[in-house]
């Protein structure tokens, strides 16, 4: 307190103009950065409401147009975009549900039980993060082919269902919030081990489950490379793949493409608007606390 009082007395007299000048530069930088981050979203809406010819004309459009309806209609003509949206939603939801279940179950075990090789096994879980996905690109495709999973949503949501990151996150949270006395009391009352997880740990971990769920949903929704490898039919394609393929197609209708992009991005923006705090916490948890 004394230090603070002293410093407020000293600094303003010592260098008032320099501080505000620095702040001004700071605000300018922050504003420029924000403009840079937000402009593409605005442009996406601009392009989604203009025809392809307008998008590629001089001067380039910078205000909203009126062709959104036509663009959407044309999009639905060239690709089964409703199906693609449903595929993405289905895969993202199942992926989220599976991730939440397997990660919280394992995180619960690592947090609340004493067992032989616990730390070694946990290190093993974290070590799996070191294997980069590109190493098994081809074998993964061959496996999916051998399992008959090509063009099946299963191929996109099941393999990544138990993520090391998720287990880490859930272990941290459950370990620091769930009192073991609570589990002991429930055991005395005759609760099964799975019951301890299902009836006690799970309901008490909602904040962490929310964060992990959002992270998994966003990751699954945006997964492009995975879909590129296993989905070869335009009816089983996800939104991202449908857009990617449409761009590569001869005679791309850019207006339709941006109408589709907007549909692919808007659900995420809504999700973010509602849950930005939990989402940011979930995404940064591993890096900041680890």
């Amino acid at each position, binding site marked *: 307190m004394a*230090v603070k009082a*002293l410093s407020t007395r000293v*600094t303003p007299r*010592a*260098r008032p103009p320099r501080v505000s000048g*620095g702040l001004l*530069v*700071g*605000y300018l*930088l*922050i504003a420029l*950065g*924000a403009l*840079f*981050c*937000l402009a*593409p979203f605005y*442009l*996406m809406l601009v*392009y989604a409401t203009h025809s392809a010819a307008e998008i*590629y004309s*001089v001067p*380039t459009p910078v205000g909203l147009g009126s062709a959104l309806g036509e663009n959407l209609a044309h999009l639905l003509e060239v690709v089964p975009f409703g199906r693609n949206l449903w595929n993405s939603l289905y895969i993202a939801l199942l992926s989220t549900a599976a991730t939440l279940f*397997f990660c919280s*179950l*394992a995180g*619960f*075990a*690592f947090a609340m*039980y*004493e*067992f032989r090789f616990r730390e070694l096994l946990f290190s093993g*879980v974290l070590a799996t993060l070191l*294997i*980069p996905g590109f*190493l098994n690109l081809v*074998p993964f495709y*061959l*496996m999916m082919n051998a399992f008959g999973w090509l063009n099946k949503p299963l191929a996109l949501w099941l*393999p990544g269902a*138990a993520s090391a990151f998720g*287990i880490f996150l859930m272990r941290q949270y459950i370990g620091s919030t769930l009192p073991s006395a609570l589990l002991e009391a429930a055991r005395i009352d005759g609760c*099964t*081990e799975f019951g301890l997880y299902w009836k006690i740990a799970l309901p008490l971990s909602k904040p962490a489950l929310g964060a992990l769920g959002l992270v998994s949903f*966003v990751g699954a929704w*945006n997964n492009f*490379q995975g879909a590129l490898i296993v989905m070869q039919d335009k009816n089983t394609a996800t939104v991202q793949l449908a*857009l990617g393929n449409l*761009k590569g197609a001869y005679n791309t209708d*850019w207006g339709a493409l*941006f109408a589709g*992009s*907007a549909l*692919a*991005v808007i659900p*995420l923006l809504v999700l973010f608007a509602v849950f*930005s705090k939990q989402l*940011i916490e979930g*995404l*940064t948890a591993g890096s900041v606390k680890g």
Partner: protein
Amino acid sequence: MTHATLRPARRAESSSTRARRLAPYLFISPFFVFFAVFALFPTLFSFYLSFQKWRQTSGLGEMKFSGLENYRFTLFGDPWFWKALGNTLILGVYGLLIQPLALILAFAILMGLKRFRALVTALYFLPYITSTVAVALIFTVVYSKNTGLLNALLITLHSLPLVGGLFPNGGVDWLGDPNTVKPAIALVVLWRYLGWNVLLHLSRMQAIPQDLYDAAKLDGASTGQQFRFITLPQLMPMLFLTVSLTIIGQMQLFDEPYILVGGEGGRAQAGLTVATYLYTTAFKFGDAGTAAAMGWILFAGILALSTLNNKVFGAQGRARGE
């Protein structure tokens, strides 16, 4: 501890004690099963594959052992691989530029914003959760040679007095000209990850005790000096992390270059990365063995760079007792 005390009584163990002993293994087993099937097995198989001559169009029985041929071909017989590797490294260097930018922005937010801090960081964070495909499509239009917004901006800047000469008068074929395609890709990557890095640095900065700044102000330290002598040293562990993430991410860069210039890297392969080339080799050229060898070479490269990063930033972080 627990099992040591339980062990002598094992024969008399009740069913509930046994359940308690076995439950954790059961609960963690799905992870290991998934990992073994969907990651470990394919990884080992890819190692095996990297020593085989095999085209995906022929059956698995057609696989022939070819020793180090795939590695030899990739490293000494394939100019595209070296191009892709060079491009990836250049993109990686551009990628590192994100760190000073993110540091400055995080520091500006820390110093200048209190009430709107959460809102502003959320806005900065938005690109990170956006689909790379949608973003790459937007930038494709922004970059277009004759009608793109970027060239339109440059024409405006060019018409300014005095500084106008610094800017080209539009007409840059950002994605078509081999000289500009890498900065163009790098800008999209920067856009996506800037906010994420700002957020990581900011979260670390917020954990630095205010006393340190107060004491420095008392000694007459300027804002710049506070950044240099308080913030930056405390951030070394976080820099180690963000640089690691940048290296790992950049070396595997796929979505952005693939959407912007395609699987063969555009004109003169100037936008080809190792990851897009690996994909193209495997799925377009059908040469699975060479693609697998390429993957292992890339993996070795990432390990080498990570070790280097560990030497530069990791050691400093540890020296400060983090």
